[in-house]
C-alpha cells in the first residue's frame, strides 16, 4: 500500500516530525510492501514563500508565525482564505484581534495571498503520486493548513481515504474534526503507535472500524462513531524514529541556509509529578498523564544512532518532564561520552546544585523548568510542589553552569492577591544577574487542565478563545468541542499589579546582560561578594571567616533561618540579623520563611553583555 504522511505548516523548520518518524517506521515494519512517503509541507511552504516573493518572505518570517503567532491563531488564519475559498476571509476581524493584543501581523497577510496557490500545487503533486492512504499529523496551528490541503486532495482523489491524528485530535477534539469536516474520513485520537497498525489492517479490510482504538469514523447512517482509546503504550516498544526523509528534504532545500537542524527525541511520556499533583493550569498530557520512560540503555543507544546518522548535535527532548531517575542512570553515562550534545529538556525546578551540575555535564544546556512564579503561596495555589526560594536557587545554579533557562512569569490564579506579589516586586532588582523570564503573562485556560475540568477551582465561565473566531466558521457547540484554549473572566491580580510586574520584568531583562554578582572564597577563609549588578552600587562585601561565611554557604540551599543556625552552630537571632543585612544589600532572596543566597560562584558569559 502506498501511504503518504504529511506534516504541514507550522511545524518548526528546524525539527523533523516525531509522529511521522515513528509511525512511518511502524508501518514499514509491519509490512515491507508498504511504501511510506513523508511530505514536509512546512518546508515546502517556506520554500514556496521564498521563491514566490523573490526572497522577501523568508524562513525568519515563518518562524515568527510558528513561534509568536501560535498564541494568536496567526498560522491557522493564514490558510483560512485558502480553506474557505475567500481571499479576505475575516481579515478585518483577524487584524482587529491582533491590534487588541498589540501583536504585529508582519508578513502574515501577505503570506495568506500565497496560501491558495500553494495548497493547489501541493494537492496536484500528491494526486500525481496516487497514494492509497493520506495521513495528516496535526498539532497546534496545523489544523487549518491540513484541512485546506485535505479538502483539495479529496476533490482530486475522492476515493483516497484521509486520516488525521496528532495532539489536535485528542478526544473530544478529534471527533469534532471528523464530524465537521466530511472530507476527513477518519481521525485517530490518542497515542497512535498501536492504533496505526490496527488502522492499516482496517484499511486493508482485515478488521472492522470498530476495532481500531480511538478511531472516529462514520457508520452506515453517516453518524460519527468514536471508539474507546486503547491501552496506553509501553514506551519501550516505541521504535527509534526514522528521520531520513526529513534530513534529505531539508538538506536539499533552498531554505537550508536559514535553518539549524535539530533532532527530536522522546525518552518519556506523561508526567510523574502530574500523576500525583497536576499543576492546576496545565493541559499537557491530555488523556495520558501516566508517566513512562525508556530504560537508560535504550536512550543511549537511540541517541548514538540518531546523532551518528544525521550528524546533528542539538536535540530537543519532547518529554514533558525529565525522568528524575535519569540523574543517576542516563545522565552520568551521557557525561562519560566524549560528545558535545546540547539538549533542550523540560525539568522540575526543585533540583539540587549537584543535579544542575549533572545536567550541564550531560549536555542539558537549555531547560524549561516550569518556574512560573516567585511567590511560594502562588506556587502552592498552582500545585507546583516547589518553594519560591528553590526556583531562585535553580536560576542561580543555572547561571553558574552556563545553562539557559526558559520561563515565563505566570499570574492570574484564583485566590492569589496583590500581597503575594509585593515582596517579589521588592526583591526582583536583586535578581538582575540571573536569567529573567521571557515575559509576564496571564494564564490561559487549557482543555484537560484541572482549572478546565473542575470549574469549582475558580474558572466557572468559559468560552472558546477569541482567536478561534478568525480561524473557524462553526456553531458554538462544535467549536467548544474542537478547540484547546478558552477565554474566561480574569482571576487573581488586577490590571495595576500585573502592569507593575511587567514593568519590573522589563527592567530585569534590561539589567541582566551587564549584571553579575559573584562570591569568591579567599585563602584566609573569608569570602568577597563582588556586586556588578545594574541598578546597584558597584561594591565588594566581605564575609568574615567562620560563622558568617558558613552561614552564607549554607544559604546556597533554600533553608529556614533556624535550619541555617543549626548547621552553623550559632543563634537564630544572629542569622536573622545577617539575613536582614544581606537582604538590604540584595545578597539573598527571602520568601515564606526560607532564604537563599544569590551570589554565583563565577560570572556567566553573556552573549549581549
Amino acid at each position, binding site marked *: 500500500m502506498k501511504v503518504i504522511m504529511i506534516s504541514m505548516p507550522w511545524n518548526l523548520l*528546524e525539527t523533523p516530525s516525531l509522529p511521522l518518524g515513528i509511525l512511518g517506521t511502524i508501518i514499514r515494519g509491519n509490512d515491507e510492501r508498504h511504501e511510506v512517503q513523508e511530505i514536509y509541507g512546512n518546508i515546502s511552504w517556506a520554500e514556496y514563500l521564498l521563491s514566490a516573493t523573490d526572497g522577501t518572505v523568508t524562513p525568519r518570517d515563518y518562524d515568527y508565525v510558528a513561534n509568536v503567532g501560535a498564541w494568536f491563531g496567526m498560522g491557522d488564519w493564514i490558510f483560512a482564505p485558502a480553506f474557505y475559498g475567500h481571499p479576505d476571509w475575516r481579515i478585518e476581524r483577524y487584524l482587529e484581534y491582533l491590534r487588541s493584543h498589540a501583536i504585529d501581523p508582519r508578513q502574515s497577510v501577505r503570506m495568506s495571498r500565497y496560501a491558495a496557490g500553494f495548497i493547489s500545487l501541493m494537492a496536484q503533486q500528491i494526486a500525481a503520486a496516487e497514494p492509497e492512504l493520506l495521513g495528516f499529523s496535526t498539532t497546534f496551528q496545523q489544523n487549518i493548513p491540513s484541512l485546506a490541503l485535505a479538502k483539495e486532495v479529496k476533490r482530486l482523489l475522492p476515493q483516497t481515504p484521509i486520516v488525521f491524528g496528532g495532539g489536535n485530535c485528542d478526544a473530544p477534539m478529534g471527533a469534532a474534526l471528523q464530524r465537521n469536516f466530511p472530507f476527513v474520513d477518519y481521525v485517530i485520537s490518542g497515542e497512535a503507535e498501536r492504533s496505526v497498525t490496527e488502522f492499516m489492517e482496517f484499511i486493508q479490510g482485515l478488521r472492522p472500524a470498530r476495532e481500531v482504538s480511538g478511531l472516529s469514523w462514520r457508520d452506515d447512517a453517516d453518524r460519527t462513531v468514536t471508539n474507546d482509546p486503547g491501552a496506553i503504550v509501553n514506551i519501550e516498544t516505541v521504535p527509534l524514529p526514522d528521520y531520513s526523509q526529513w534530513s534529505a528534504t531539508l538538506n536539499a532545500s533552498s531554505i537550508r541556509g536559514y535553518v539549524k537542524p*535539530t533532532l527530536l527525541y522522546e525518552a518519556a511520556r506523561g508526567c510523574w509529578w502530574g500523576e500525583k499533583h497536576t499543576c492546576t493550569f496545565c493541559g499537557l498530557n491530555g488523556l495520558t498523564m501516566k508517566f513512562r520512560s525508556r530504560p537508560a540503555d535504550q536512550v543511549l543507544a537511540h541517541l*548514538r544512532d540518531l*546523532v*551518528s546518522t544525521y*550528524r546533528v*548535535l*542539538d*536535540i*530537543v527532548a519532547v518529554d514533558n518532564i525529565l525522568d528524575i531517575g535519569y540523574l543517576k542512570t542516563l545522565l552520568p553515562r551521557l557525561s562519560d*561520552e*566524549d*560528545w*558535545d*550534545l*546540547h*539538549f*533542550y529538556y523540560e525539568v522540575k525546578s526543585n533540583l539540587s546544585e549537584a543535579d544542575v551540575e549533572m545536567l550541564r555535564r550531560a549536555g542539558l*544546556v*537549555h531547560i524549561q523548568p516550569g518556574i512560573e512564579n516567585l511567590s511560594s503561596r502562588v506556587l502552592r495555589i498552582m500545585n507546583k510542589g516547589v518553594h519560591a526560594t528553590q526556583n531562585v536557587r535553580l536560576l542561580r545554579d543555572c*547561571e553558574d553552569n*552556563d*545553562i*539557559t533557562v526558559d520561563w515565563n512569569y505566570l499570574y492570574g490564579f484564583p485566590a492569589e492577591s496583590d500581597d503575594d506579589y509585593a515582596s517579589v516586586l521588592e526583591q526582583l532588582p536583586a535578581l538582575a544577574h540571573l*536569567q529573567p523570564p521571557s515575559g509576564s503573562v496571564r494564564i490561559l485556560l487549557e482543555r484537560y487542565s484541572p482549572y478546565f475540568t473542575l470549574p469549582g477551582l475558580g474558572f466557572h465561565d468559559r468560552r472558546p478563545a477569541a482567536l478561534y473566531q478568525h480561524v473557524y466558521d462553526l456553531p458554538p457547540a462544535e467549536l467548544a468541542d474542537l478547540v484547546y484554549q478558552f477565554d474566561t473572566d480574569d482571576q487573581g491580580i488586577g490590571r495595576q499589579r500585573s502592569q507593575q510586574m511587567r514593568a519590573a520584568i522589563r527592567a530585569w531583562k534590561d539589567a541582566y546582560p551587564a549584571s553579575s554578582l559573584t562570591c569568591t572564597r579567599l585563602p584566609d577563609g573569608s569570602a568577597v561578594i563582588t556586586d556588578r549588578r545594574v541598578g546597584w552600587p558597584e561594591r565588594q562585601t566581605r564575609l568574615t571567616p567562620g560563622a558568617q561565611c558558613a552561614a552564607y554557604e549554607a544559604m546556597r540551599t533554600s533553608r529556614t533561618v533556624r535550619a541555617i543556625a543549626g548547621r552553623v552552630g550559632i543563634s537564630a537571632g544572629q542569622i536573622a540579623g545577617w539575613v536582614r543585612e544581606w537582604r538590604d544589600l540584595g545578597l539573598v532572596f527571602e520568601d515564606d520563611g526560607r532564604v537563599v543566597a544569590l551570589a554565583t560562584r563565577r560570572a*556567566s*558569559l*553573556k*552573549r549581549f553583555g
Partner: protein
Amino acid sequence: MYLTTSGLTPAMLISAAGAGRFLKFIAELREMTARGDVIAWHAETDGDVDLSPLFHLCPPSSAEPAGRVTEWRESYRPGLRYYRRGPGFVVAYDHHPATGPREVTLTIPSDIALFDRLHSPGAVPAGSRSAARLRQAGLLFDLGCESVVPIGRLRRLTLPTNVL
C-alpha cells in the same frame, strides 16, 4: 611581530625562527579562551602577519602599535568560533560577523586525526590532503613551517544558548 603577555607566557619574537613559540602561545590562548578565562596580555607587532584568523580568541588588552588590534578588540565576544564533537565527527562553527555564520563538519578519519594532532603546534605533512581540507575550512593557522588549530572545543557556553 613581537608578542608579549602578562602573566601567561614570556615575550616572544614572531619570525620564521620563532613561529613555534608563537603558535604554542596561540594554543594556550585558545584553551584559556574556551574556558572563559580573563586574560590580560600585550601584543607587539611589527610585521604583516594576518591576525584576522585569531579574532575569535581573547584579544590583547594592549598593543603596540595599538591600531593593529583595534578591529580584533572591537569585534571580539565569547563564543565566536569553536568546535563540538560527536560520535565519529567534528562540527566547527563560525559565528564571526566577518566570516560566518558557517558550519563545517569533519567526517574523514584522517582529517579528524590531523585536526586533533594539530591542537599542539606542529609541522604539516607535505602534500597532505587532510591539511588542505582543514586549511580550506579555516581550521589551521599557519606560520613558518608549522600550524596550529586556532579554534577551541566548546567548554563555557554563552547565555543564552538556544537549542530550540
